[in-house]
């Protein structure tokens, strides 16, 4: 608060000084005396303001006070209280409006100042409280610092003490070590001493023993006796033998025999163990080779040097494997070979497994972006499929074998021939039947053909007759219409033309029939064909085949009827021919249907027969 005050005060004072200077300058010329008077009076006036406010302006000094105020206000930048005079001499009059404005502004300023002051005061208070708080904090921290410093000192002290202790302990340890060393030395010396003493004592003891021995044993002690009723036989039934060099040698021999036996036994055991281990090794090797051989191709493709060379080793070893006798030889070279090859293979296997592991990890890492590697699922599916197929094939083979066996077992040569014969007979019979049917059909066909030719002849005759008739009728007409002779020749021509037109007519008729005919054919044949195609693969049922057949035959008969009139036309021949063919194929009549049904059944039966053998 004090700081702020000190900062603001000099400015204000300086300003006021300036202002006062300025006012004095401005007021110097007109009435310096007056102004000085005012200035002088202002001091007592201010005193007066302080003492009693009303005393500033009295009846007598209104003018003066107004001029003073004006001066003051102008110095503060307010407009002059006096009205602007036109001439210097005239007395300036007091401008009420200006006065009032000034007052208002002053009041406003006053209010503002008050507000600002309030604000400043509250700020001041806040800052004061902040200050207090900070001071408190500072004090606390100071205290803390003090305590921590004290603690630090304490810890340092303790550290020092501990170090001291440590040093002491080290010293003690050293001392103890020394002590231990000393004690060990003492122990060692004592031990030697003890041993020495022991030895001495023992020697003495031995001497005493010897002496005692001499005293006790060599005195021919009568008491040391064995009193036996009679000597018993040895447990093994043998007689005791004298001790000689021979017995000694024999004992030695026996001992060595025992030892040899033991060693032999152990050797046998070891041999057995070795054999078993060898077997295991062999098996392992075989398995390794079998395990590694299918992978030969892949590593080669990858052109891995180590695997390539190793694989050649494997092959060599595989060659070696055949020489089984090698295994029985337990000489060192073979052993070395064996161990080396096993080691090599083991190394391959290891590297391979490691590689696989790496691959697996790679696959795991990379996900499924390996394209050339077939996914396991696919593999499995494929293998499953293949297995299923194999199963089916196997079953098939089984059934076939069974059938074959049944045939082989059930039918001897005679029966088989008989069976074959009976089959032939059946066939013959069937063929005969068919033959007869065929013959009948042929007969029918012939009959029809005859009818047909007869009808054709008749038709030809009729046509001739008709043409003759027409010619006569035309002649008549011609004769009736034209009386001129020369016109005859033209008429002939015309006739020829007419004959051509008649041809044209024929053609039209033919086209009409043609139009009709394909229709009829299309009516009949597609149904039939479709039916046939439908019925052929399946078991053909004559019952549903026959009606269609008959229907077709009906159509065809109609066709025939339609065709017959135009038989003579040359265009018709090819068509006729096809029609004929068709009619042959689809002969009307129940017999034909029956035939076809029969033939179908025949073929069917034939097929069945084919199945049988």
């Amino acid at each position: 608060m004090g700081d702020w005050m000190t900062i603001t005060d000099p400015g204000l004072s300086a300003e006021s000084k300036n202002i006062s200077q300025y006012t004095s300058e401005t007021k110097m010329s007109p009435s310096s005396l007056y102004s000085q008077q005012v200035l002088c009076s202002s001091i007592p006036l201010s005193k007066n303001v302080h003492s009693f406010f009303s005393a500033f302006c009295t009846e007598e000094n209104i003018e003066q006070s107004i001029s003073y105020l004006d001066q003051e206000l102008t110095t503060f930048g307010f407009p002059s209280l006096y009205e602007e005079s036109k001439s210097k001499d005239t007395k300036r009059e007091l401008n009420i409006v200006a006065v009032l404005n000034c007052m208002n502004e002053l009041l406003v300023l006053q209010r503002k100042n008050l507000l600002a002051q309030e604000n400043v005061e509250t700020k001041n208070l806040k800052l004061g409280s902040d200050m207090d708080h900070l001071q408190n904090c500072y004090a606390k921290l100071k205290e803390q610092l003090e305590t921590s410093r004290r603690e630090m000192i304490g810890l340092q002290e303790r550290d020092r003490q501990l170090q001291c202790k440590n040093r002491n302990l080290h010293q003690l340890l050293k001392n103890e070590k020394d002590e231990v060393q000393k004690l060990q030395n003492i122990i060692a010396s004592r031990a030697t001493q003890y041993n020495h003493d022991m030895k001495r004592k023992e020697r003495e003891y031995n001497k005493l023993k010897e002496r005692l021995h001499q005293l006790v044993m060599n005195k021919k002690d009568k008491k040391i006796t064995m009193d036996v009723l009679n000597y018993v036989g040895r447990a093994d039934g043998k007689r005791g033998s004298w001790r000689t060099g021979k017995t000694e040698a024999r004992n030695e021999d026996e001992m060595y025999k025992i030892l040899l036996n033991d060693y032999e036994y152990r050797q046998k055991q070891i041999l057995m163990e070795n054999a078993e281990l060898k077997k295991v090794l062999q098996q392992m090797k075989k398995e390794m080779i079998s395990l590694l051989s299918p992978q030969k191709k892949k590593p080669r493709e990858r052109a891995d040097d180590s695997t390539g060379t190793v694989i050649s080793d494997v092959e060599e070893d595989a060659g070696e494997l055949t020489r089984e006798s090698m295994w029985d030889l337990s000489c060192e070279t073979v052993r070395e070979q064996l161990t080396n090859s096993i080691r090599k293979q083991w190394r391959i296997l290891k590297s391979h497994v490691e590689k696989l592991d790496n691959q697996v990890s790679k696959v795991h890492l990379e996900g499924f972006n390996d394209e050339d590697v077939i996914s396991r699922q696919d593999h499995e599916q494929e293998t499953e499929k293949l297995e299923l197929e194999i199963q089916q094939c196997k079953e098939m083979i089984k059934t076939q074998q069974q059938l074959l066996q049944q045939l082989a077992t059930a039918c001897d040569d005679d029966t088989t021939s008989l069976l074959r014969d009976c089959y032939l007979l059946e066939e013959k019979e069937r063929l005969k039947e068919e033959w007869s049917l065929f013959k009948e059909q042929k007969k029918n066909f012939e009959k029809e053909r005859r009818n047909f030719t007869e009808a054709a002849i008749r038709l030809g005759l009729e046509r001739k007759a008709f043409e003759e008739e027409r010619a006569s009728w035309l002649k008549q007409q011609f004769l009736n219409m034209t009386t001129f002779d020369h016109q005859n020749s033209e008429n002939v021509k015309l006739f020829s033309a007419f004959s051509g037109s008649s041809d044209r007519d024929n053609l039209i008729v033919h086209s009409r029939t043609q139009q009709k005919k394909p229709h009829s054919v299309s009516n009949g044949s597609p149904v039939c064909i479709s039916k046939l195609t439908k019925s052929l693969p399946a078991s053909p049922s004559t019952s549903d085949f026959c009606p269609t057949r008959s229907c077709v035959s009906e159509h065809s008969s109609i066709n025939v009827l339609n065709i017959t009139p135009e038989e003579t036309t040359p265009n018709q021949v090819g068509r006729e021919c096809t029609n004929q063919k068709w009619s042959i194929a689809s002969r009307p009549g129940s017999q034909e249907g029956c035939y076809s049904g029969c033939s179908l059944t025949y073929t069917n039966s034939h097929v069945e027969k084919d199945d049988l053998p």
Partner: protein
Amino acid sequence: MNFSEAFKLSSLLCRFSPDGKYLASCVQYRLVVRDVSTLQIRQLYTCLDQIQHIEWSADSLFILCAMYRRGLVQVWSLEQPEWHCKIDEGSAGLVASCWSPDGRHILNTTEFHLRITVWSLCTKSVSYIKYPKACQQGVTFTRDGRYMALAERRDCKDYVSIFVCSDWQLLRHFDTDTQDLAGIEWAPNGCVLAVWDTCLEYKILLYSLDGRLLSAYCAYEWSLGIKSVAWSPSSQFLAVGSYDGKVRLLNHVTWKMITEFGHPAAINNPKIVVYKEAEKGPPLGLGRLSFPPPLPLAAPLSASESKYEIASVPVSLQTLKPATDRANPRMGVGMLAFSADSYFLATRNDNVPNTVWVWDIQKLRLFVVLEQLAPVRSFLWDPQQPRLAICTGGSKVTFRCFLCAGIQVGTPWPSSVRITSVFVSWTPKRGSTQLWNNGTAMRRPWWNPQQGLRVPGLGRTRFPWELSGCHVPAQ
């Protein structure tokens, strides 16, 4: 449970004959031989003084009775009761007496281990072996009875002598590279001799029958060493238990260590089954156990039965803190036994006294842990099948059988016997066992081919036929 009537007994001297037909027991200076099947007294022999040790010959024809105080050994024949033999060691004194494997020679060790006298029952010949070493196991015979190895001490050096048992001729004599030899043991095939040093130094040496050093093994230095050694019946493995609480298996080809089995007090592996013995309520009305024992004495004593419970796996076993400042501290693997088929190895760590570890040798790993209520006194494998008999002691002795082959683990034959110490033995043929209490004289397990469990109480013996358990009353 079935018991015979009780017999009088002194000094816990009671032995089955190796063929399983007879039972010899001593009452003061009398030796009583009974028929096992009928329990009738077959022979009665009277010795010159109180008997301190008896031993059947291997062919079950003779019985040796030693009277150490008088320096006397008397031999009796079962076939000829009138036949007698008396061996007097005179002023040399007697501390140990045993049969040779052929059953026709007696080996007497004189006082102060001055010499071993070999007396023959066939001839008048007497052999002397000088300088026998007084140690844990100084004499060992091969299984076929052909050779004897003897530890000797001359001029402050250890030697081993190998004798041919048929004529007691020295076959080999060689010095061993040991500070203070503690024991020797033949491999079951009779071709390898294991020699181990005193507990102050871990050292085991393997010698061939002809005296060659095959191998030497040392697991560690500067600490207490070997505590127990056992050959597998197949001679394939040599198990060495040491004071560090580990068993090390050596193989028979390279004589190097195959594996080592630690004996931690806490078991965390969930694959290992830990059976814990637990007290059971009154056994009344419980199937087999309710079968009334014919002896009226047995009834009130069968007060507490026990059973095995499977403990949930992080198990901490009861341990004993050994007094390390004293001699022979109770720590390390003190007992080792292979099963007859060499498939299992049972061990006991002496500072975890209540527990028996059973190891699977085929898989070379821990198989089963059996924690008993009381400290394990001894255990023995059935010579026929993988079955382990465990004897625990305290104020009460329980005897139990544990089957390794099947899941048939549990409490086949629980019993509580108020004896201070017990030794167990399996019969070689019919799978029965013997128990001794306070077996001062008996250190080697004795194979009893006879049916039944013999539990000598203080002065009385009982035979439980078709044994399920047995009880001996306190005097």
